[in-house]
């Protein structure tokens, strides 16, 4: 079995700081492999351990941190890793990343499974999996919270607004995973040391014959609505706390 896993270098949103005017200081925010991508890598390694598979990872970007997340994937057990070098990777349109993956698959594939994160938390689109699916012509199962494979059929559960969906199909498939899918392993010192010696392969867009399209971003601002921030400690004065909520409801005419 051949598995391709996509990983994205993602801004750690919880550590984002802001300029006075509310623009985010993205350049100085810490970066990491996307949380759901890590689950995709973990799922690929589990399939490799159980059924034997070669696992390739791919990331699109051009910084040293991209090399770092490829090595993080090596340390988890991935066999080979590629960086597709694009300077302005953060502004790429999702459809261009789809074109890149398609060209890469034509060069190195075919793959039985393409695993990726359901969505990244920074400049997410939550749609790359299905874009790839239609570009390559392999069916998709998206937003998977739990995955199993019996050697011939993939069974995947996805929790949605109206209930739990269970999808079943044989490979080839594109599958996007949520952070519920598994607990990614922590690499051991031994695998970390080994990962440092492995080669990270690089390809340029021209080598893949892909013309990039970019998003035109005019402005990015902190999304925040100023509030009164009146604090009432109910531990000190429960009556006052209850009275406050009650009087607001009453003032707005919402108490029957």
């Amino acid at each position: 079995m051949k598995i391709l896993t996509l990983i994205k270098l993602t801004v750690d949103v919880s550590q984002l700081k802001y300029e006075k005017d509310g623009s985010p200081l993205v350049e100085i925010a810490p970066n990491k492999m996307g949380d759901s991508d890590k689950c995709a890598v973990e799922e690929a390694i589990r399939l490799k351990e159980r059924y034997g598979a070669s696992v390739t990872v791919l990331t699109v970007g051009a910084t040293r941190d991209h090399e770092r997340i490829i090595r993080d994937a090596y340390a988890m057990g991935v066999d080979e890793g590629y960086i597709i070098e694009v300077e302005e990777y953060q502004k790429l349109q999702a459809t261009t990343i789809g074109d890149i993956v398609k060209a890469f698959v034509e060069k190195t594939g075919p793959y039985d499974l393409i695993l990726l994160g359901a969505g990244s938390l920074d400049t997410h689109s939550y749609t790359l999996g299905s874009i790839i699916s239609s570009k390559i012509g392999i069916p998709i199962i998206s937003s998977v919270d739990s995955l199993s494979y019996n050697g011939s059929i993939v069974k995947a559960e996805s929790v949605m607004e109206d209930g739990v969906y269970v999808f079943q199909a044989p490979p080839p498939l594109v599958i996007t995973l949520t952070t519920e899918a598994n607990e990614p392993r922590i690499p051991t010192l031994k695998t970390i040391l080994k990962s440092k010696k492995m080669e990270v392969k690089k390809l340029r867009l021209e080598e893949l014959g892909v013309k990039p399209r970019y998003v035109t971003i005019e402005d990015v601002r902190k999304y925040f609505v100023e509030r009164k921030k009146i604090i009432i400690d109910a531990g000190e004065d429960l009556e006052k706390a209850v009275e406050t909520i009650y009087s607001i409801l009453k003032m707005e005419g919402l108490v029957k």
Partner: protein
Amino acid sequence: MKILCYGENSEWIKYSRIIIDKLGGYPYCVTPSRELAEESSKYFEETYFFNGGVYEPSKYCRAILEVAGRIFPDVSLFPSTIKGRTIAGLYAGARDESIITDIVDVDHEDSVLKLKRLVYGGSCIATIKSTLPATLCITPGTQKPPETSRKGSIEELRISLENRITVSLNPRVGGGPPLEKSDLVVAAGRGFKNREDLEMVRELVSLTVNSAWSVTRPLAAEYGWADNWIGISGVTVNPRIYLAVGVSGQPLHMVGARNSKIIIAINKDPNAPISQEADYFIVGDLYKILPKLIEKIKTTKTSST
């Protein structure tokens, strides 16, 4: 401008009409059932439907692409839900056009779209420009267009919808009343320890005017305690009062609540992020505060009648 909308459910069909009016264009809708087509025909000039059965994205996408192949839309609208995004990605991939998700506001100058979208997990809003044609996934809101007596045309699509993926659905049962047009929305978070404890929320809703309740995503998606949730992957509401109980206030949740006029939060952790986003931040145990509040409303009611 021709606008094609995927009519996933009846709340979204209504809300999408508001977006379409903002963009100004001739509206078409594709729905996965005859029932939804009836609903859509009240708001859309032309509706196409297919008997989709249980959701499967490639099957649904084929039907929508069929209509797109006939009408050549400039803008295609999908709700930014799990299903909506998945179908939209297939659709934009097949048409090789740009796709933008998590859109909270739309505008256009001539044939350039100006869109506001959420980024960085709901912490920021980005303003971006896009040329046409484009596929847009809009964060569903709860506003409704005015009722009309319009009756648009309805046509059934007769296309083969077989697919390689088999799918079954275990539907979720029981949740709160609909959130649309509520003046008070009570949102319950993981501060609630048991499903039965939500009874307090239901009672509060029954004692107040034009109110509804919902939850944070873990309570709905993980525990199955409600049908809908508020936030980036759920519903956006705009009530007069938003009462968040046992909710920490992660941006992914708060983006669904920031349009509220007044935000009141009950949380036992004085440093919970929601302390920064509330007008009234009540520090304390919900298990002590809610029963007292309910009692207060009940006694005041009986004494005044």
